[in-house]
């Protein structure tokens, strides 16, 4: 939550949580802990939330680790949930591990898929019913691991924004609200960390919802060459994205990163410039409706999933695209 608004990723997870809860025949519950919680109920109930736990306290915004940890740990001890899903945001990735350590439960970060299934322990023959399969890339995205948590609860997982799709279940769905006494959950010493300064800017980059993305990789060569991508994006009314290698090299800002460790996108057109196609990048853009790859290496891995492969330097190809786009739209 930021300023009373439920985060996009939480709405996506409520949607996923609803379908898991329906499959398991259990309740979907949500937790909101912040200074402003007035409109949370109306924001979350349409996703099919059966019960909303509210913790309202001025000291809970902005987020700090320890009070939120105490709230979750104590509530989970009382409620004993089977599954806990969290956004793999900076907050979720700060809070999730602390809570899982305190409860001795496992946590799987950055899941790309969550399913319910059974498991048989080979050694003992013991069968576990209805476990959460926490499916995530590992090893830099080169493999996909199916993680399970047979004996410990809750089964905890984080998911990045944009990986799941949000969908209203029923605009008139109504659940129950439980307002908790914050002081029953937190201790005075949970507030030892103080935020003395904070600058949050609304991001100007909106890659996730952009219909057209011009994206650059390490092969673009330099921050200066990225200007070509901005020029093309400007003409096409597109957003500029980047691969992890390009972000690591300092060619583009981190918030433009597309892939398993960045944003997952599904635009109608994805123009990949100088991107070789690391698996972790492809996983974040393969659902694009149309993919154009511009690369001077005709055997770049990304070419195998592209609809159009243009073999050439971006310095010559992009200006031509701009030229002929302009000529043909006049």
């Amino acid at each position: 939550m930021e300023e009373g608004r439920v985060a996009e990723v939480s709405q996506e997870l409520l949607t996923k949580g609803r379908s898991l809860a329906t499959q398991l025949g259990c309740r979907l519950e949500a937790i909101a802990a912040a200074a402003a919680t007035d409109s949370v109920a109306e924001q979350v109930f349409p996703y099919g939330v059966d019960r909303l736990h509210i913790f309202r306290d001025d000291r809970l915004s902005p987020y700090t680790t320890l009070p939120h940890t105490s709230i979750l740990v104590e509530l989970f001890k009382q409620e004993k949930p089977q599954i806990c899903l969290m956004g793999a945001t900076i907050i979720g990735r700060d809070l999730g591990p602390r809570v899982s350590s305190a409860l001795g439960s496992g946590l799987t970060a950055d899941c790309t898929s969550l399913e319910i299934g059974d498991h048989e322990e080979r050694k003992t023959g013991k069968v576990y019913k209805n476990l959460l399969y926490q499916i995530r890339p590992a090893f830099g995205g080169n493999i996909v691991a199916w993680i399970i948590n047979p004996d410990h609860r809750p089964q905890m997982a984080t998911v990045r924004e944009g990986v799941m799709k949000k969908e209203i279940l029923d605009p008139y769905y109504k659940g129950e609200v439980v307002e908790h006494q914050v002081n029953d959950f937190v201790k005075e010493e949970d507030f030892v960390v103080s935020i003395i300064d904070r600058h949050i800017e609304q991001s100007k980059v909106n890659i996730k919802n952009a219909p057209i993305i011009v994206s650059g990789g390490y092969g673009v060569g330099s921050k200066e060459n990225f200007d070509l991508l901005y020029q093309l994006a400007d003409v096409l009314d597109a957003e500029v994205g980047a691969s992890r290698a390009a972000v690591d090299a300092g060619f583009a800002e981190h918030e433009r990163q597309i892939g398993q460790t960045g944003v997952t996108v599904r635009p109608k057109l994805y123009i990949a410039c100088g991107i070789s196609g690391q698996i972790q990048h492809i996983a974040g853009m393969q659902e694009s409706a149309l993919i154009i790859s511009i690369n001077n290496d005709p055997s770049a891995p990304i070419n195998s999933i592209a609809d159009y492969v243009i073999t050439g330097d971006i310095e010559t190809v992009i200006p031509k695209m701009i030229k002929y786009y302009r000529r043909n739209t006049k």
Partner: protein
Amino acid sequence: MAFNIIVLAKQVPDTRNVGKDAMKADGTVNRAALPAIFNPEDLNALEQALLIKESYPGTKITLLTMGPGRAADILREGLFRGADDGVLLTDRAFAGADTLATSYALSMAVHKMGSYDIILSGRQAIDGDTAQVGPQVAEKLGIPQITYAEAIEEVKAGQIRVKRRLEHGVEVVECPLPAVITVNGSAAPCRPRNAKLLQKYKHAKTITERQVEHIDYIDIYSSRPYLNLTEWSVADVEADPRQCGLSGSPTKVKKIENVVFQAKESRRLSGSDAEIDELMRELIANHTIG
């Protein structure tokens, strides 16, 4: 004033640029072909420790890593860059640990070291990208954590001020010590190896390395105690074996799949004017652009 700093580091396969030479014929990764490196963000963490040491001479930086015997390489790497001491936590019983069992083992090693003011580590390791071990170590030790740190702005007795990098902004927090700080890749890069330190520490070894390599100038390890890299087992840190390694890991790997993407029938263009012209007309005509 001087501080006791522990830097948690991991030796990782360099997964960032899996080139064609690291791919097997069946499209899977040949892990053995990847170089083992000092996890990049752990180097950012080491730099923050070195900056504190510059401001407060007498500060002691101890690197702590868990891994197989060859992970001693990153301890030497850290000594070459300015760390004072290295500890390798190694035991077959640690193998197969998930983040929780790893954090337990590391926290037991920290207990064994005794007093400390600051624990620094990278935000996450590039082989798992979980970012869980730092916060879990903090929880096991019962001390606060500051994640996503970009710069340590001030350290004084019992308190630290840290700038954090958030999704769309920055935050400055103050926190009592001891605390765990996990450092982002956007923080200052680690300084290179120092030639003098390289000379000083090039023979630094763990006891196992000295035994395996049959080093004949063994007397240097008694005359120069700083060449002895500490090596600890499960028993040395008085850890409960049931909470270590595979048996101490609540999460289990059910299966591993190789990633195979569905190849498409691509149209190949040379980039000539005529072809780009036609492509743009086509995209405009089918309303993809324009």
